């Protein structure tokens, strides 16, 4: 009998992290575009701010990996 619980759990951990990142980046990206339209010199800072939510998906990936490595 194949246990689907572990890969599904890993998928949820990664997927929700990615979803959170997507929501956060859409807002920050829109605000960033607005800021750069008025102040192009803020481009570098905006790239960093848009990248910060990536940590969510990375954490999700780490948790998913730990689930897969440690529980399988």
């Amino acid at each position, binding site marked *: 009998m194949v246990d689907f619980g572990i890969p599904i759990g890993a998928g949820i951990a990664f997927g929700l992290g990615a979803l959170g990142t997507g929501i956060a980046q859409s*807002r*920050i990206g*829109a*605000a*960033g*575009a*607005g*800021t750069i*339209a*008025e*102040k192009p010199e*803020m481009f570098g800072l905006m790239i960093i701010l848009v990248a910060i939510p990536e940590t969510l998906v990375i954490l999700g990936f780490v948790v998913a990996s730990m689930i897969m490595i440690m529980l399988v």
Partner: protein
Amino acid sequence: MEYAYVNARIKAMKSRLLDRSLLEQLINKPDIDTLITELEKTTYREELEKAGVLYSGINRIEVAIRKDLVKTFRTILNLIRGGDSERYVTIILNRWDVQNIKTILRGKKIQENPSEILECLIPAGELDEAALTELVKQPDVKAVIDLLATWGVVYARPLTANFKEFADSGDMLVLEYALDTFYYQDAMSKLKGGESDDARILKSILVTEIDINNIKTVLRAIRDRIDTEEAKRYFVQGSPDFDAAKLLSIMKSGTIEGALKLLERTPYQFISKIPPEYIAAEKISAFEKELERYLVKKSVALFLGDPLSIAIPIAYIWAKYTEVTNIRVIARCKLTEVPEKELREALISV
């Protein structure tokens, strides 16, 4: 409405507003020419250069800052196109339509030169410069109202309805009050049923404006010993806290001191802190200035409100308007060599 983009842009635009130190530099300029040189280092440069082709001195500043204000407001309106937020910003911008129509009507009543009237207008609302130019060309008050009615401008309705009374009495207050009442009632009806945060924010500003208008009316009526029933006609409805009954009770106090005492437990208690010599002299302009400052401060304070709401565009519109008013005050004071102390008193600091 996706506010993230719009409000980020508006906040970036806010960062280009003149700060306190720049205003100080403008105040310290000895004359109009050095003031223009200083202003050319700011965002007004482009409009000052354009205006410099046709105008000089204070007219150059007036034209440039007016064009800049209109351009800025149009930018905000274009950013916010679509949905309720456009409707809400239009409500705020319509204030300038009402103000412009009032200015034209006053000008026509005293048969002022059309170019002089045009100089006093700010085409920031729905009536653009071409429409306003056409309106000031009209020979009299009746013709202005008729033209507004021909264009289907909503403000023609209260003016037409009250024109007979104006024609009989010659009192411009009749038309001005009709316009104000129509504007606020129309704005409130547009907000009715809107339970969103945006509607609530705009409503709170409109209610403050109505309160301030009514308090000014009450204070003027007390000073001029106007009968309560007569004054009651000029109260604008729409404020839940300051309804006609409460305003009448303030009026019945009979004196400015009495009215101020009754205002003590309201958000407008700050006007009782006005120097006693103004109260004794019943100098209403001092109270009016304080009340207007309160409205500006309350509106600009919206910058600290929800960053993903209509609060930011409203706050910016008021902040920009305040900046333009301050530059105008500085320019006028430099022209007439008003002492620095009086100039500083006339400025609105936010």
